[in-house]
């Protein structure tokens, strides 16, 4: 175990580096997505010792909502919806990595998506380890609610 703030101090610094070392926002997001993918892929491997090797799609998503999310954020996903056609909507209504951002109402740049992109990559990497290729998009709502949409590619 380590302290949560230890990871968060590091996380902020990592995002800062990626933003500064990229030519534009699109490239930065791509890099964060890739980093997340790698980490998610490997993290699942360490967490899923007791789950079957090739779970059903719904079981894989549930694993992410519960075990995976708890390992990272100490809480589960708050809401899971699906259209039963390969689209899953995961809502975290208190997304940890947005909790400590200070909000400046006068700032021009209110975008904090770079603090979420890595998490989208994590989900994608985790799903791929279970054998599901998918696209993960996200939407930041209100102060710290994050909605992730997983779309399975067939």
């Amino acid at each position, binding site marked *: 175990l380590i302290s949560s703030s230890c990871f968060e101090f590091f996380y902020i610094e*990592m995002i800062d580096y990626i933003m500064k070392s990229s030519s534009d926002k699109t490239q930065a997001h791509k890099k964060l997505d890739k*980093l997340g993918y790698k980490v998610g892929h490997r993290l699942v491997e360490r967490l899923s010792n007791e789950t079957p090797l090739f779970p059903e799609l719904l079981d894989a998503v549930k694993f992410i909502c519960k075990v995976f999310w708890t390992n*990272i954020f100490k809480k589960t996903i708050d809401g899971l919806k699906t259209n039963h056609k390969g689209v899953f909507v995961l809502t975290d209504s208190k997304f940890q990595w947005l909790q400590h951002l200070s909000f400046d109402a006068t700032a021009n740049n209110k975008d904090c998506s770079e603090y979420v992109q890595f998490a989208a990559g994590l989900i994608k990497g985790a799903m791929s380890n279970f054998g599901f290729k998918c696209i993960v998009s996200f939407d930041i709502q209100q102060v710290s609610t994050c909605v992730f949409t997983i779309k399975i590619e067939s």
Partner: protein
Amino acid sequence: MNKKYDKLGTDVFNKVEKISSELFTLTYGALVTQLIKDYEDIEQVNIKLEQMGYNIGIRLIEEFLAKSGIGRCQDFIETAEVIAKVGFKMFLGVTAHISDWDSDKKEFHLIIEDNPLIDFVELPDHYKHKLYYSNILCGVIRGALEMVQMKVKCTFVKCALSDESTSEIKVVLEEVLSDLIPVGYD
């Protein structure tokens, strides 16, 4: 003195929010890989990691002082103990120990037996003795101490990934900065 800080370190660590270290270890590894990709020169990677650590250190000290309740240290010996027993414990969940003091008591080695950053990491041979994988720790110590008026230099003398031993950081006190308000500061 030893015992007192051992206990304080444990108490503070019990108080803080914790997560499992895997996410941190894996993410750190992914970042180091990214840096190696971005910079051709490994020495530049070491420098960048140290800089990132420095930026973390100058921010982290505030939380450290607030949560540990530690006041001004009497001397550098006490500072060293506090870093090893309270600082490392509070953030990384492990303690370090101190050895190799020089006669002036301005230089010591910090020995980290259980560095969570290097869990499940193996360095390829051509990076051994070149890449200081955990160099971010040197930066954190430098940044944090600078905020409490101590200018230090930290370098890895041994790295568990290259030397098959424990990790060892040399910390040298270069200057105690005065408390005076900097020139030009209103």
